[in-house]
């Protein structure tokens, strides 16, 4: 399968795009419930207010989170080396992420079962952690992809990863973490502004505007850093785009500013970061104008464009190695076999539209704003 419409190289690009689609789906969908979770104690002052805020995401967050679960599953099936190296390499960060994510199903599921102020505020805290910590860690992880992660492969091709948890907390990675946190908090509050009644919606507009301002500053700062000082990676030796997935056959050079190569090469890609900034400005303005729907659309644009910006910058790298750059994982040498990629593509083509259709139906059933009065009828624990 070296040529034809589904040449190995083409399949690899398609699967890189699918991974991007899943990440974007995750940021748009799970993004708003992570953002709402992280903001719940600010948005709701009384128990009834908090219940109204949580009720805006409770019926849908579970489905939203599957975008993340599926992203992990797709990485396992389509990019097994990426899945193996990143999850084992970021061991303690992944553990922290996992524990935070575990707090969500139990937080949403258990909070309202008992009418006790301390019980409920404890779960509100759990949901804040469960929303905020993953939102921060995703950016920290992306920041570390830009920096490169210390790993190589042994003679059996087992990934060997150096560094510990604290080595992940490079200032650039923390900056990227704030970018993702502010981006998802914006998404959550734009959603809440649209979905919950006053006075929670007013608080959501305030917090959303603050988040969009922080996003703009940090996104620009990260861009300037990448342009002026950050070493980037570029493939410098031969790399067969349809070759076997053996990440040890190429050479890679580290050059400052190399993460912008793709933008210089195809200036149309500059649209991605520009749209991310415009989206954030738009969300800020629309929230000010109390146009919550428009703000949510603008915020969604921020999610799409920010992830595209990162993806374009890194391409074709999936995970650069800072210690053995030649062994970095790229789109061309760390995928599954062509056969697996083709079968999985067929499955995605059939089932993703079905998923989108029933998800849209569920949201249409649940349309409408949620006010404090609405939560009273659900009292009683079911």
């Amino acid at each position, binding site marked *: 399968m070296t040529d034809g419409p589904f040449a190995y190289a083409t399949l690899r690009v398609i699967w890189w795009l699918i991974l991007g689609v899943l990440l974007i789906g995750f940021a748009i969908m799970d993004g708003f419930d992570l953002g709402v979770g992280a903001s719940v104690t600010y948005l709701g002052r009384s128990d009834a207010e908090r219940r109204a805020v949580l009720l805006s995401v409770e019926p*849908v967050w579970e489905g939203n989170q599957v975008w993340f679960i599926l992203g992990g599953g797709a990485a396992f099936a389509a990019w097994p080396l990426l899945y193996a190296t990143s999850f084992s390499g970021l*061991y303690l960060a992944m553990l922290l992420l996992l524990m935070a994510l575990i707090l969500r199903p139990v937080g949403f599921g258990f909070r309202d079962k008992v009418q006790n102020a301390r019980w409920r505020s404890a779960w509100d805290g759990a949901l804040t952690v469960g929303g905020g910590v993953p939102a921060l860690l995703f950016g920290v992880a992306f920041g570390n992809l830009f920096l490169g992660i210390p790993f190589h492969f042994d003679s059996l091709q*087992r990934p060997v990863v150096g560094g510990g948890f604290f080595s992940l907390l490079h200032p650039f990675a923390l900056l990227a973490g704030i970018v993702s946190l502010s981006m998802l908090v914006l998404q959550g509050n734009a959603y809440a502004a649209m979905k919950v009644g006053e006075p929670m919606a007013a608080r959501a507009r305030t917090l959303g505007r603050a988040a969009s301002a922080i996003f703009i500053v940090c996104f620009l700062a990260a861009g300037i850093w990448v342009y002026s000082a950050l070493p980037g990676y570029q493939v410098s030796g031969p790399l067969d785009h349809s070759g076997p997935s053996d990440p040890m056959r190429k050479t890679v050079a580290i050059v400052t500013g190399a993460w912008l190569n793709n933008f210089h090469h195809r200036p149309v890609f500059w649209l991605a970061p520009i749209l991310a900034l415009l989206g954030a400005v738009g969300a800020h303005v629309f929230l000010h104008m109390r146009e919550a729907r428009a703000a949510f659309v603008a915020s969604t644009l921020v999610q799409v464009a920010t992830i595209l910006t990162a993806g374009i910058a890194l391409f074709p790298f999936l995970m650069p190695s800072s210690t053995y750059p030649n062994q970095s994982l790229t789109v061309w040498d760390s995928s599954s076999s062509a056969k697996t990629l083709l079968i999985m593509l067929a499955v995605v083509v059939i089932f993703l539209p079905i998923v989108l259709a029933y998800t849209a139906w*569920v949201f249409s059933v649940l349309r409408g704003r949620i006010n404090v009065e609405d939560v009273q009828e659900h009292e009683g624990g079911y």
Partner: protein
Amino acid sequence: MIDFDVVTLSRLQFALTALYHFLFVPLTLGLSMILVIMESVYVMTGNEIWKRMTKFWGVLFGINFAMGVATGITMEFQFGTNWAYYAHYVGDIFGVPLAIEGLMAFFLEATFVGLFFFGWEKLSKVGHLIVTAMVALGSSLSALWILIANGWMQHPVGAHFDYHTMRMELISFKEVLFNPVAQAKFVHTVAAGYVMGSVFVLAISAWYLLRGRNIDFAKRSMAVAASFGLACSISVVVLGDESGYLAGEDQQMKVAAIEAEWHTAPPPASFTMFGFPDVAARVTHAAIRIPWLLGLIATRSIHEQVRGIDDLVAQARAQIVKGIDAYSALQVLRAGPPDSPDAATLQRFNANQADLGYALLLLRFTDDPSKATPGQIDDAAWSTVPNVPVLFWSFRLMVGLGLFFIALFATAFYLATRHRFERHPRFLKLAFFSLPLPWIAVELGWIVAEYGRQPWAVDGVLPTFLGVSRTSAGNVWFSLAGFVIFYSALAVVDAYLLIRTVRRGPDGMGLSP
């Protein structure tokens, strides 16, 4: 080269987190189906009590579902964090059913579960029933794909080793999909989940009847549980027998270990009902045997042998020797130019690559399998024997519980048809105290299937010890401690909520007329 602290800790962590996850999954499977039955009756009859039943059991379902989702995320993470080499080595095949599970099954289940709880007022009767059915369908489909993945670990079909990429690669998706082991495991496991749901409903309803609370509600619930449970408990045992037959074909060592069949006996082999397997002496003391039975279960004939452990170890030894040939050829291929391999070496590799996994067993005893001594080969061959006493006892207890469930549900079914539950408090007590038994049975089932596959992560392909990540023992200690503390706290909260909800009951929650 292999850090055995990391291996031991990673295995312990996987076993604990998988066994813990498996406390919740079968109940989700079973209760979701029971909710569909109850709500169907509501839609067909319009009798409000069936709606209240659906809502009440739905609350318990929801508490359990949250735990299942929470602990399921761990499983997906763990293949990467702790079993990175496994993920790389078999991701090309194993990752496929996992990803399809997410797309086809978990999405369905998770998207509709919210509407199950919050859609009662927003949907028509039939609309809501469809939502409930989608949740149940999603959870059963989820089990299907997970067991296709697991079935491949038990019986790896449709794949071969590629020396360019140093991993197993998919040849035939059809074979992976229609793997007979996966099919048998799916129906056995799902039916076990349905039995658990039925025992859960039966036991809690019995408690209400003993207390004289929610009489109509509990009797109807018991009738559903009794009929559904009876059908499913018979299926579990029959389909478990199918698994046994298939294991007899493909995983002979597992069957031999379960039966403590130390030596090949002339066919048809007898079934050891009871006894004390002695690993050191390789005999079973005080054995009570039923003639012919094992031969019939495992081979469905009276002429075929059920091979004993010593025979299978000898076979493993021969496979190790062939595997060493593949391993040495692989080293030569890896050292040479990747795109123009030496033809003779490639042929030598291809001829023996099916047994490459057996050579990898030697990495436990030597860093270089190609220079293994006969003593090391013997050690590796004997390392293919799983823990006989654990399997022997787990299996017997599991089967005993399976037979008990049939008797329990048959009795319940009889009493349900006669409307006589209240007159038999002793049966109600028995039903109530049976509550923990399905959990014991399914955990034992996991042990038989997974511990019985040891020393392999993927049977004959990848030894478990080799599958671990090259991380530090300190990291795994830390995560294991984290899981123990975190999971224990969650268990306390979960048990508290379940007990509290049952105590409040439909009458305490505004769900009685």
